[in-house]
């Protein structure tokens, strides 16, 4: 069934594969390899007399396949909502396509080959043309066509094919690509997870997996070549990792991780509707970080109140052209509308550093993190910047948007960015296009100079958001990509904590809210210290939200303030970290034990 090498060594070696995380969760189990490679029957020549019967066989199969699809559509609409069911309307369009069936009929008359061969030829022709399409969305839709195509082929050939339907035991499904209808037939009970060679985060399969809540990793490139029937794999849908034939140590480690997440899931249900406030009723906003509009679902399901960081650069990646204003507007609007009435803090393009965009022609800096990036780049390229600002402004009419500039190093940069924003606003006004006139505009505080001059910035900014990842690397002069000096990257370094506290205090003096986004926000040991500093908002990856909420609800602001005070008297990062961990153990033991 599976393609690939059967002559692997006698001893099964552990192998770690990295793909794209498509649906969260961790699962460990035996593999079930879904094969589609041998769907093609041998080619056969037919006589003139056989042509009509082959054509009528084709028409009959089209009809039965159509019934099959309608049944799946009904089932999915009922179980998973009308939205998911709609995927199959696209399948019906392909099935009913006049050009496709005409071409099959013409070719069979001309070539006199069995219908399976002819149909596969025509199908491949369309797939190969479409796979060269520039549009990612369009390329993802190839799976619609192959899905229907394979279904028709399966029905033409008849007999046994190893489809997902054959799966009985609880297994992890491995495939080159999974058709949406395959994913749809998966039952939570028998499918533990799935891993595929191809696919992106926006492919139907990824979306389906998320709604079925089955962990999934896609885009693994060659997993079907690597795994063999009977292999055990660990599938980590949070990080997009698949470990084939894991050692006992890895299995134990992941079992622990899995339990932790299951435990969290339970807490999540309990915590989801409870307010995020301390024992003494200090309200702290818990928001989620997102990269794509699809991530909104996870923000909502984890009980986050809004989006604290919408990274927009992913929009610009993996493509040759620049996203249009319209395209950006549609994405921003959909996020704003879905998160409403909660706010969405949208960060303008943060390119450079470790994120390069081919179409923008950003030269490689010797020192990329100190180079031409983020707001520096945007101010130099007002065409790119203003297009994005207009899209954001237009979307602000559909929800509660907050605009944030990355990598602000001082007040002048903030003012310059606002000049472009005003230009964008007046252009929209001229066209009578609506936008939120009072959209708050904030600065991301991630350069030490901004933190040190946050008193001045606070007079003009509507809010601050502390970006800890960069703030740490800039203030400690530690390249966070370099593993040799990773030990120096200390979130608890007194210098870092003092900059954070200074920013919060300066913000509060001018009555503006101060939030924090970055890995630290999800670093549970530090949470109490940050609460004690008076932080107004945490924005973290949505999966970290329940844990943070638990901590917030378990401490009083008064006690947290005392912890902060003690911590800031210490002189080393190690001391502070150990103290923070000890306090977490004392105040929120069940969370401390899980970490």
């Amino acid at each position, binding site marked *: 069934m599976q393609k690939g090498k059967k002559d692997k060594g006698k001893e099964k070696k552990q192998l770690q594969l990295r793909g794209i995380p498509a649906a969260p969760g961790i699962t460990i189990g035996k593999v079930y390899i879904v094969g589609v490679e041998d769907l093609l029957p041998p080619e056969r020549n037919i006589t003139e007399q056989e042509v009509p019967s082959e054509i009528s066989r084709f028409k009959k199969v089209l009809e039965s396949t159509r019934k099959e699809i309608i049944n799946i559509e009904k089932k999915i609409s009922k179980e998973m909502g009308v939205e998911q069911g709609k995927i199959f309307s696209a399948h019906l369009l392909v099935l009913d396509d006049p*050009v496709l069936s005409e071409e099959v009929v013409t070719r069979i008359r001309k070539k006199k080959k069995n219908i399976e061969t002819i149909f596969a030829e025509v199908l491949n022709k369309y797939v190969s043309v479409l796979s060269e399409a520039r549009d990612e969305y369009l390329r993802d839709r190839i799976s619609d066509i192959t899905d229907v195509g394979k279904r028709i082929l399966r029905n033409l050939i008849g007999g046994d094919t190893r489809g997902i339907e054959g799966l009985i035991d609880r297994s992890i499904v491995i495939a080159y690509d999974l058709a949406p209808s395959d994913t749809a037939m998966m039952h939570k009970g028998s499918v533990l997870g799935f891993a595929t060679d191809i696919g992106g985060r926006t492919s139907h399969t990824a979306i389906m997996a998320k709604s079925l809540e089955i962990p999934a990793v896609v885009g693994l490139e060659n997993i079907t070549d690597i795994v063999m029937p009977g292999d055990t794999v660990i599938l980590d849908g949070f990080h997009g990792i698949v470990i084939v034939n894991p050692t006992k140590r890895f299995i134990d480690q992941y079992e622990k991780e899995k339990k932790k997440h299951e435990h969290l899931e339970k807490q999540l249900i309990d915590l989801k509707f409870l307010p995020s406030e301390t024992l003494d009723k200090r309200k702290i906003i818990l928001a989620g970080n997102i990269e794509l509009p699809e991530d909104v679902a996870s923000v909502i399901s984890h009980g986050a109140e809004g989006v604290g960081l919408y990274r927009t650069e992913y929009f610009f990646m993996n493509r040759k052209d620049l996203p249009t204003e319209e395209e950006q507007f*549609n994405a921003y609007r959909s996020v704003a509308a879905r998160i409403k009435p909660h706010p969405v803090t949208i960060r303008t393009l943060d390119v450079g550093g470790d994120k390069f965009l081919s179409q923008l022609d950003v030269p490689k800096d010797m020192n990329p993190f100190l180079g031409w990036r983020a707001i520096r780049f945007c101010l130099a390229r007002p065409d790119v910047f203003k297009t994005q600002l207009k899209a954001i402004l237009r979307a602000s009419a559909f929800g509660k948007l907050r605009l944030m500039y990355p990598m602000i190093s001082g007040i002048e940069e903030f003012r310059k960015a606002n000049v472009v924003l005003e230009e964008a606003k007046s252009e929209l006004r001229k066209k009578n296009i609506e936008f939120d006139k009072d959209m708050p505009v904030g600065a991301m505080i991630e350069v030490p100079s901004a933190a040190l001059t946050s008193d001045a910035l606070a007079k003009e900014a509507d809010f601050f958001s502390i970006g800890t990842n960069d703030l740490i690397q800039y203030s400690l002069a530690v390249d966070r990509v370099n593993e040799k000096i990773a030990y120096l990257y200390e979130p608890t370094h007194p210098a870092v904590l003092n900059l954070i506290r200074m920013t919060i205090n300066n913000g509060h003096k001018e009555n503006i809210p101060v939030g924090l986004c970055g890995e630290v926000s999800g670093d549970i040991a530090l949470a109490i210290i940050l609460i004690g500093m008076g932080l107004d908002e945490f924005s973290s990856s949505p999966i970290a939200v329940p844990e943070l909420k638990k901590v917030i609800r378990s401490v009083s602001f008064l006690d947290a303030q005392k912890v902060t005070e003690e911590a800031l008297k210490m002189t080393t990062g190690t001391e502070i970290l150990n103290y923070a961990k000890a306090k977490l153990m004392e105040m929120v033991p069940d969370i401390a034990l899980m970490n």
Partner: protein
Amino acid sequence: MIIKKEVIVRNGSGLHARPAAMFVQIANKYSSVIKIVKDGQEVNGKSIMGILMLAAEKGARVVLTVDGVDAEAAAQELETFLLKEKDPEM
């Protein structure tokens, strides 16, 4: 009746995927024969494959030909669809 119109595609992301499917669904409501020509390539307007092959991007110039008893209404609705700036929600 035959109606022939030159239209510039204004759909947000061109005549791709979702808009293409919408176009075909509209076309199928009418009995007229519907054709689209772009750069000399002619495709059946009722075929999703055909339209996808055309790869008409936003701003592309296409010629829409509608032939049949309900040509007028069909041409009208399809033209309006192509000129809509907002991406359709399916």
